[in-house]
C-alpha cells in the first residue's frame, strides 16, 4: 500500500480495471457471506422476535435491554470468560513446555512430537467422543483413577461444578499441540550460538530460558494469543456431544447459545443481539492486535 498509483494514465486505467476486476469474485462472496450478514445482523437486532401471529416490529434497543436483564446471559458470558481465562493461558503454557521438550535432545523426540500434535488433526466431535469415555460416571477412566484415591464416582459432565471444566480439558487437549508447532518453529529459529554464549557467561538453564528464550518468543506468543482468543469464541463443537450446554446452562458458551436460540428456540432477535456482541468482542481483539501489537504482522 506504500506504492503510489502509476503516473501514466493508460497504465493507471489498466491497474484500476485489473485490480477491481480480479477482486470482484472474492468481494462478491465476501459481501454475501460476511459484509451483508454483519449489517443484517445489526439491523435485525433492533427488531422484535416475530411470530406467526405477530410480525416483528422495530423496537430499538429493547432486545439489548432484554438480554442484559436475562440472568442466563450473565451466566453464559461468565462461562465464556472463564473458558477463555483458563483455556488460553493453560494451552499456551503447555504449548511452550511441549515445544521446549520437543526441541530438546531427548530419545524418541519425533514420537513425542507426533503425540502432542495428533489431537490437532481430529475433529472436535471425534475428540468429544473419545473423552466421553473418560467422563462416564462410575465406569469411565477418570473415575477408575479417582477411585484409587478413595474418591467415589463423579458425574463429571452432569453436575454444574465440573461440567465446564470437563469441556475445557478437551479444548486444552486439542489446542496445545497446535500452538506448540508455532513455538517449535520459533525455537528452531534461535541461533545455537546464543545458548553457547549464555553457557560461557555462566547462565544456568533456567536463566537462559527466562532471559533469552522467552523474550525471543514474544512475537509468537502474541500470534498464538490472538488465535487462542478467537478460538475461545469459536470452539464449541464438543458441547454438542459432551454437555449440550447443561446442566442448567453451567457449561453453555456464547456461540452455542447463539446456535440454540436461532435454530432450537427460533429466537432470531436474541441470536442477532448476541452475534452483534460477539462481533464487537472480536473487533476488540482485532483492534488490540492492530494498535498494541506488531503492525508488521499485516503490513510487511
Amino acid at each position, binding site marked *: *500500500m506504500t506504492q503510489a498509483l502509476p503516473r501514466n494514465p493508460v497504465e493507471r486505467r489498466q*491497474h484500476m480495471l485489473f*485490480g477491481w476486476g480480479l477482486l470482484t469474485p*472474492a468481494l462478491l462472496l465476501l459481501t454475501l457471506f*460476511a459484509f451483508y450478514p454483519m449489517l443484517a445482523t445489526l439491523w435485525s437486532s433492533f427488531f422484535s422476535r416475530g411470530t406467526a401471529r405477530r410480525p416483528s416490529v422495530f423496537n430499538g434497543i429493547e432486545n439489548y435491554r432484554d438480554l442484559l436483564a436475562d440472568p442466563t446471559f450473565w451466566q453464559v458470558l461468565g462461562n465464556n470468560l472463564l473458558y477463555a481465562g483458563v483455556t488460553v493461558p493453560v494451552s499456551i503454557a503447555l504449548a511452550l513446555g511441549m515445544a521446549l521438550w520437543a526441541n530438546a535432545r531427548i530419545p524418541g523426540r519425533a514420537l513425542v512430537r507426533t503425540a502432542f500434535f495428533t489431537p490437532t488433526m481430529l475433529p472436535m466431535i471425534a475428540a468429544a467422543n473419545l473423552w466421553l469415555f473418560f467422563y*462416564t460416571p462410575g465406569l469411565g477412566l477418570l473415575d477408575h483413577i479417582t477411585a484409587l484415591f478413595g474418591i467415589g464416582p463423579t458425574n463429571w459432565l452432569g453436575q454444574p461444578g465440573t461440567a465446564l471444566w470437563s469441556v475445557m480439558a478437551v479444548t486444552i487437549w486439542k489446542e496445545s499441540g497446535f500452538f506448540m508447532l508455532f513455538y517449535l518453529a520459533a525455537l528452531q529459529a534461535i541461533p545455537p550460538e546464543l545458548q553457547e554464549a549464555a553457557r560461557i557467561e555462566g547462565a544456568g538453564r533456567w536463566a537462559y530460558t527466562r532471559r533469552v528464550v522467552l523474550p525471543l518468543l514474544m512475537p509468537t506468543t502474541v500470534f498464538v494469543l490472538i488465535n487462542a482468543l478467537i478460538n475461545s469464541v469459536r470452539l464449541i463443537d464438543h458441547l454438542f456431544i459432551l454437555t449440550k450446554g447443561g446442566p442448567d446452562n453451567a457449561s453453555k458458551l456464547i456461540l452455542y447459545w447463539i446456535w440454540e436460540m436461532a435454530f432450537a428456540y427460533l429466537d432470531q432477535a436474541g441470536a442477532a443481539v448476541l452475534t452483534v456482541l460477539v462481533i464487537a468482542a*472480536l473487533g476488540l481483539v482485532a483492534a488490540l492486535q492492530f494498535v498494541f501489537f506488531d503492525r508488521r504482522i*499485516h503490513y510487511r
Partner: protein
Amino acid sequence: MAAPSSERFWRIIDTSGAWLLALCWIAPLLFALWAAFHSANAALALDWRAPLILDNFRQAWQAAPWLRYLFNTVILVSLILIGQFTLCTLAGFAFARFQFRGKSLLFALVLLQLFVLPEILIVENYAMVTRLGLFDTPLGMSLPYMASAFGIFLLRQAFMQIPRELEEAARIEGCGWFGVLWRVYVPAAKPIYLAYALVSVATHWNNFLWPLIVTNSSATRPLTVGLSLFGAPESGVNISIVSAATLMAIAPLLIGFLVFQRQFIQAFLRAGIR
C-alpha cells in the same frame, strides 16, 4: 558452568517429563483404539484380558451410511479448495501487483474476515444460503468459505516476494496479465499452494457447526455431522461402538497425517507464521 552430572540429571527429567506428557496426550486415542476392539462391558470394566472382537466395527459400519458421508466430505473439501484457489489467487494477485484507488480500504475489509469468521454469522449466512436456494447442497456448505481472507493474505504475501524480473521475461515472450499470473506467479508460489491446501483440507474435513446447520439429509451430510448424530446418547449405542465409529471417521485424515507428517507440519508452519 553446568557440571556433566547435572546435565545428565536434567536430561532424565526432560525425557521422562516429555514422555509422560506425550503418553497422557495420546492416551484418549489409544484407549479408544483398545475399546473399539473389545465389548463395551469389558472396556468399561477395564478388563485387560478380554478377547479382541471386531463386532463393534461391524455394527458401527451398518448403522450409518459412512461411505456416503466420506464421499460428501471429500466433495465438500474439494469444492472449498477449488473455490479458494481460484478466488484467492485472483484477489491475492490484485493486492500484490496492482495499484488502484480504494485498495487499502478493500484490503482492510478483507482482513476483517480473519476475525469475524463465518461461524459467527451462522444465522444470517443460513438465511442467505436458503435465499439462494442452496440449503442442503454441497455448494451451500462450501460457498461461505471460498473467499477466505486467510488465503488471500497468504497468496498476496507469496506473490509480493516474487521478483519482477521473472515477470519481464514472460512479457517479452508475449504474455498478458493472465499469462504472467499463470506462467510466473502461480508456479513460483507452489509451496504456498501446497501448504494452504493441506491446512484448508484439514480444517474443513473437521468442520462441524456450519455443515450441521445447512445440511438436512444423509445425501449431503459430511463425516463430522454424521458422527455427531451417530454418537448422540439418544441413539442408544454403547461406548465401544462409538469408539469404533469415531476411529473409522477419523482414520482417513489421521492416516494421511501420519504418513505425510512432515509435510503437514511444514504446511501449518508456513501458513501460520505470517
